[in-house]
């Protein structure tokens, strides 16, 4: 039983590391963007705004992550 539990934990750690890696900010931003776009598009029915915000959100998240990485180096 404990062997199975360890195996499940190992697989879970692998999946988390695979998707989150050393950039948790990008993962969290993507989840946030998806929820926000779902709300704007599906609930508010503002499809054009959702499209614009989706692209803008990706670019902003990437910019923030890059700036943080650059600051860490400098």
């Amino acid at each position, binding site marked *: 039983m404990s062997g199975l539990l360890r195996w499940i934990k190992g697989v879970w750690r692998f999946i988390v590391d695979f998707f989150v890696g050393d950039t948790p900010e990008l993962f969290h931003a993507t989840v946030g963007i998806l929820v926000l776009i779902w709300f704007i598009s599906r609930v508010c029915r503002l499809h054009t705004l959702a499209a614009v915000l*989706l692209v803008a959100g*990706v670019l902003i998240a990437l910019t923030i992550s890059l700036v943080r990485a*650059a600051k860490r180096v400098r």
Partner: protein
Amino acid sequence: MIAVSIHSSDAVLVAAVFLACAVEMVEALTIVLAVGRTRGWRSAFEGTVCALVALALLVAVFGPALVRFPLDWLRVFVGGVLLVFGAQWLRKAILRAAGLKAPHDEDEIFAETVAELDELGARTDRDRLAFVMAFKGVFLEGVEVVVTVLTLGASSHRLGLATLSALVALVLVALVGLIVGRQLSGVPENAMKMAVGVMLLSYGTFWTGEGLGVRWPGADAMLLGFVALYALFAFGAIRVLRHGVPAHEAVS
């Protein structure tokens, strides 16, 4: 006369999967070569083949299962995965191109792997360590390719085309590796990674939007617009980040 119609989405899909697979397989090849040269080719070859079979099984099991998902949810899920992956690939490639992150050096990785294996003692005829190292190297590098093949292939109902594209890249890298007989350090890996990052982000944006009810102007052609937008962003970011970075400050 046979009319040939190539959709922009198919072209982006083939290019993204081919480049992603080529980059990952170049990295896997370095490990397999290091293992083969240090501990013998038999176990390295067996580990590689087993890893490739395991990766093919993943595609065979999860591919048909993904296709059965309701299309909108599949696109949101796939889009989200591609956005995360694409952003990670593009971020890394931008940082490397700007000199803020040490470039991926196949020669260095080869030397490190050989040194690590040398330290681990004498080898036997059927070397468990060599098998595990080769298996791990190919499998871990290949999982990203599998995710790319599954997500891009399933969401656009082109699983066969995506798999074929990955296979062509795999065979090509293996053939070049066999002919050259050494790690492929001359391959412009970072440029390829940047291209893959741009394409994954483009697909991610496109499918996420489609899954959430956004109707893109120009339909599939909008993908090319995203590719241009993210490529422009990448070049702009590199220019800005390069400014004032002394080479010796690059992180490893």
